[in-house]
């Protein structure tokens, strides 16, 4: 006999949701960073030549999003002016306290250094050829290192390779760590899972790869150049395989929960069938996962024309980004919709104009694209031998 809670009861202090849309955005953005970097490393470390046209774009995309990544966290704090305390007096047992160090490591040691090494030759040449303010900017960006002899560039290449090698586990660390922040909360059965960091890593790769693929296709189109079909074919292939691993992990988690059916199951099951039905089942699993996997799978096995494949990749990429956003939403918001008493539920109201509301989230989503535009102007990521 199936019994639902006799009445909807939440603890009296559970009337407000603690983490809102900005905390949904935070793992989404860091996921894009990690995924974009992994795509870049495919070319650098694993020598996948086909994805070379996206190498620099992926790095700049990762940097643009990484620069924005701390803002959602900063804006949701009750006292943003005290956030520096996390660096100065971190509490070592806190998963959240490590954010600053993981972030700085990834930003300064991995991403900025790799981009600088990769672009150093271009920066030096641009500092010589440009004039006015741009010349000063490029001069500053050389950091006083204007030796572009063959030997010097060879050293750049070797060091860059090593940094990418370090960067891959660092990208895993960055996003696995974000998953750990949620997965280590034993008070919340929706979050508490050792699989959470792993699922976050693979979903990050999926979203980052899809984002760079879409950006590459859109920006190439806007620049009236030809999209390299070999490149997008290769990216779509990796996206497809990683997506399958990601989906398998999520399904493993789901099946485990359903079969084990512990004390929280009835509560969570009820939530998934009511308030989370649309964002979780319809948007995340169906539209955001099964449909793009099917589309990508079809492109792998069916002999389709180039133009059809490109369109299918574009559709699959967009749905993937929506699906991964829904996944973040369902983790963060879904994890707060039920009471820790497991006897009741609450609702989430999206505010528009508040500090952590929809308007701020939209600005923070657009901001990385603006940064990417400036970065791409300063450091053009396009291959030199592109066909028009």
């Amino acid at each position, binding site marked *: *006999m199936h*019994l*639902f*809670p*006799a*009445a909807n*009861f*939440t*603890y*009296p*202090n*559970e*009337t*407000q949701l*603690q*983490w809102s849309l900005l905390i949904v955005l935070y793992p989404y953005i860091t996921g894009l960073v990690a995924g974009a970097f992994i795509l870049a490393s495919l070319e650098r470390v694993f020598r996948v030549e086909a994805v070379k046209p996206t190498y620099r774009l992926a790095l700049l995309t990762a940097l643009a999003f990484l620069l924005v990544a701390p803002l959602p*966290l900063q804006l*949701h*704090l*009750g*006292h943003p002016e*005290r*956030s520096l*305390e*996390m660096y100065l*007096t*971190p*509490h070592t*047992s*806190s*998963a*959240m*306290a490590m*954010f600053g160090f993981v972030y700085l490591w990834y930003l300064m040691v991995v991403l900025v250094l790799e981009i600088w090494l990769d672009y150093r030759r271009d920066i030096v040449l641009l500092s010589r050829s440009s004039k006015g303010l741009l010349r000063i900017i490029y001069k500053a960006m050389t950091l006083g290192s204007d030796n572009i002899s063959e030997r010097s560039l060879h050293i750049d290449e070797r060091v860059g390779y090593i940094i990418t090698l370090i960067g891959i586990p660092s990208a895993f660390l960055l996003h696995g760590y974000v998953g750990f*922040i949620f997965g280590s*909360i*034993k*008070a*919340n059965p929706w979050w508490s899972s050792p699989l959470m960091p792993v699922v976050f890593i693979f979903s990050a790769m999926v979203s980052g790869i899809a984002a760079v693929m879409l950006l590459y296709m859109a920006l190439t189109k806007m620049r009236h150049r030809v999209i390299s079909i070999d490149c997008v074919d290769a990216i779509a292939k990796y996206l497809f395989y990683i997506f399958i691993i990601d989906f398998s992990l999520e399904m493993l988690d789901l099946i485990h929960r359903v079969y084990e059916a512990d*004390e929280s199951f009835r509560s969570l099951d009820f939530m998934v069938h009511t308030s989370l039905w649309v964002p979780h089942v319809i948007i995340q699993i169906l539209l955001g996962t099964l449909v793009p996997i099917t589309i990508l799978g079809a492109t792998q096995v069916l002999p389709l024309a180039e133009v059809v494949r490109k369109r299918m990749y574009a559709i699959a990429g967009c749905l993937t980004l929506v699906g991964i956003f829904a996944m973040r939403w369902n983790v963060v918001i879904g994890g*707060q919709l039920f*009471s*820790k*008493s*497991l*006897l009741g539920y609450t609702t989430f109201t999206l505010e528009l104009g508040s500090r952590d509301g929809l308007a701020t989230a939209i600005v923070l989503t657009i901001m990385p694209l603006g940064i990417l535009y400036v970065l791409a102007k300063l450091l053009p990521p396009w291959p030199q031998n592109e066909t028009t």
Partner: protein
Amino acid sequence: MNMNRRFFITLTGAAAIAWEHVLAGAPEASPNYKMADHWWAMLIDVDKCIGCGNCVRACSVENNVPEGFFRTWIERYQVDDMHIEDPLVDSPQGGMHGFPQRAPGTGLTGNSVKEFFVPKLCNHCADSPCTQVCPVGATFTTPDGVVLVDEKYCLGCRYCVQACPYGCRFIHPEKNVAQKCTLCYHRITKGLTTACCEACPTGSRQLADLKNPKDPIHEFMKLHSVQVLKPQMATGAKAFYANLDGSVR
């Protein structure tokens, strides 16, 4: 100014009264209190709670708790043989104003319906998850076993609210920092009991010092079955419940 003896005596009296007021606003010195000599806990006898709400009101006044939030609250449970795992629970305004009688037809109708009240507060866990997750150490455990929040240091990141399995924490709507029961630390370090214990008319709540061998809690725990809430959370909870029903969450 013309100061005669009569005026001087009047002025001295007024100054003495004014000084009393100054002292009343200043924290009282507690020179004999040694933190290392205490390990505070709370003992709650569920059978004695009548759901009057005195404790919630006293806490609210004593600690200036913002409206709509609770450092302590009371839950009313109704359980029958068909709802051991799904009890009927309510806590209107944290039980602050007591519990109105249920409207006819809104309660359980099984064969063995029973009803009881469960006071809740921070469990002042020895291994508190809220302390563990605080990114700056603004939440900390005192040497005498009380979990406190440094309001001048708290970032308002809300991670501790998420980490507390018992729903004891909230974000102060004006101060934007985490708040919770302090076990009336300002009182117990001066030899007083907590506001909720003092206001409880039936003695359902008892402040207990586990390091004091003469504390009645030791005798009580020898003779009674005592539990903690959600023992599977392994938080080292120090809110001990006597006569706690298994349906309580």
